[in-house]
């Protein structure tokens, strides 16, 4: 019986395993190989050891991109979690039109990222920006703000768009978590004299933590490997100040055709991603065994 189940399972999993081997495992091996050669577009390369890695670690643009990626991931995650949790708590109340609100709120998450980011790029336009108009009307500014042209500000603008797109995902996922919490617990805590804040901190938060962790870790991976926002909003500029790992890998690997160096830049993401994945697996196992 076990034998036959094994055979059936094998056949049911063959298509999945074939595709994943062909287009994930094999490219990964090939990417590692590529990164230790000196291949450029149209020319096969040969083994040069870790030269590409020493080269990129001495490259100041790469260092900026690496730092940007960590700051970008850290800052946006904090904001997405805080705002997402706030929105989830608001949505967890009873009010009229709740289903509609919930449906519309998810739009930033489901509309293709590049398309909505183009709308943001238009809103950030130095000459025609609606934000400039708004702040000018509110008498906050009297000269234009160059949202994407100033290096510091450009990064903040990109982060804003990332938070905008991520908040609905956090809110809806956390809302699902909130709905599994038994309201009796809140009532019991209220009877024991806990105020609103204490009830959140001692009842809601600990019970919500497993869902929160999974959402945050998942989002960290996505944000860390982000490409589309930067590609559309700034292309890594001004003066290469807003690159992330992925956009710099694209610029070097595809833009200039230095394939092996681009592959090395992409792979530089791997250790951090691996760490998050290992932590996530460990955490899920711990929660399941409890």
């Amino acid at each position, binding site marked *: 019986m076990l034998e036959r*189940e094994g055979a*059936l*399972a*094998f056949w*049911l*999993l063959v298509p999945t395993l074939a*595709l*994943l081997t062909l*287009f*994930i495992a094999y*490219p*990964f091996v090939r*990417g590692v190989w*590529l990164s230790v050669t000196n291949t450029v577009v149209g020319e096969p390369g040969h083994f040069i050891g870790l030269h590409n890695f020493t080269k990129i670690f001495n490259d100041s643009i790469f260092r900026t991109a690496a730092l940007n990626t960590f700051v970008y991931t850290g800052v946006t995650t904090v904001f997405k979690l805080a705002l997402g949790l*706030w*929105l989830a708590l*608001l949505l967890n*109340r009873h009010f009229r039109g709740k289903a509609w609100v*919930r449906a*519309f*709120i*998810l*739009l*930033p998450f*489901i*509309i*293709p*990222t*590049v*398309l*909505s980011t*183009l*709308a943001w790029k*238009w809103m950030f336009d130095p*000459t*025609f920006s*609606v934000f400039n108009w708004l702040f*000018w009307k509110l008498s906050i500014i009297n000269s*234009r703000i160059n949202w994407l042209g100033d290096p510091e500000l450009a990064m903040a603008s990109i982060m804003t768009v990332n938070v*905008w797109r991520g*908040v609905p995902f956090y809110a809806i*996922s956390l809302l*699902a978590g909130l709905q599994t919490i038994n309201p009796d617990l809140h009532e019991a805590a209220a009877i024991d004299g806990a105020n609103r804040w204490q009830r959140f901190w001692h009842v809601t938060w600990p019970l919500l933590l497993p869902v929160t962790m*999974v*959402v945050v870790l*998942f989002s960290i991976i996505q944000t860390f*490997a982000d*490409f589309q926002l930067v*590609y559309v909003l700034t292309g890594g500029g001004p003066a290469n100040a807003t690159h992330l790992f*992925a956009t710099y*890998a*694209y610029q070097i690997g*595809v833009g200039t055709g230095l*394939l092996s160096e681009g592959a090395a830049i*992409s792979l530089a*993401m791997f250790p951090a*991603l691996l760490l*998050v994945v290992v932590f996530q*697996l460990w955490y*899920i196992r711990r929660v399941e065994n409890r």
Partner: protein
Amino acid sequence: MIEGAKWKKWLWFYLPMGMFILGLLFPFYWMAVTTVRPDRELYRPWNHPLYSPFWTTHPTFDHIKNLLQETLFDRWMWNTMLIALAATLISLLCGVIGGYALARLRFRWAGLLGTAIFVTYLVPQTLLFIPLADIIRDYHIGDTPWALILTYPTFLIPFCTWLMMGYFKTIPKELEECARIDGATRWQAMLYIVFPIAVPGILSAGIFAFTLSWNEFIYALVFLSSPEQKTVPVGVVSELIRGDVFFWGPLMAGALIGSIPVAIVYSFFVEYYVAGVTGSVKG
């Protein structure tokens, strides 16, 4: 006391809720207004006395006409639709049978395989796009829809498998066992008993996979090169922006119309979609 409570509710509920809704939806409104705004209004600087951001007195369909007549937008829509549907079908098929195997069958390596598939779910596209472009070239499928139809399942299958696995686990085993006692084979029990019950799960996975395919960007950007092969996101970005010149009217029209298929699918299946989002993180 009651007056005070009402005031508090406005401050702590309606006000923040209103801000969230406004902030989250404004970019789409802006997209729509720009689409129908004539160029002479569009290119008024922010401090121009006649800058009227929130409405237009002379709505026009010129940008949409321009988009449909001057660009290959309709081709991009078709390409994206075809690729998204094909990739979704492949992923659903793999995910449903694979998820069933992992949830229901006892075999060696089951735990390990489940973990391996979960890990591939977390592999971002940006990690592998350069070697993958090489491989696509080796297989001679570069610049064809196959380059995307075959690679999109790599990020869709893990998610579909994981979601279906969770769904199958909620279906009582006894249903299948009853059918088998009545003489059904395992295949029959699977096809006629389990899969029909799993339809809501399949819908969630399918809708989620469809929107993810429509959203994908970097593979489409790197693996396709001729304008008539492109997908909507890549076509709009690469063909409507010429160097430093942005054709904002047609760009926003493209963004708006390019979002419609996803929005329609989403509006019909909101509940399934929400289940997919939450299922995708809970596993």
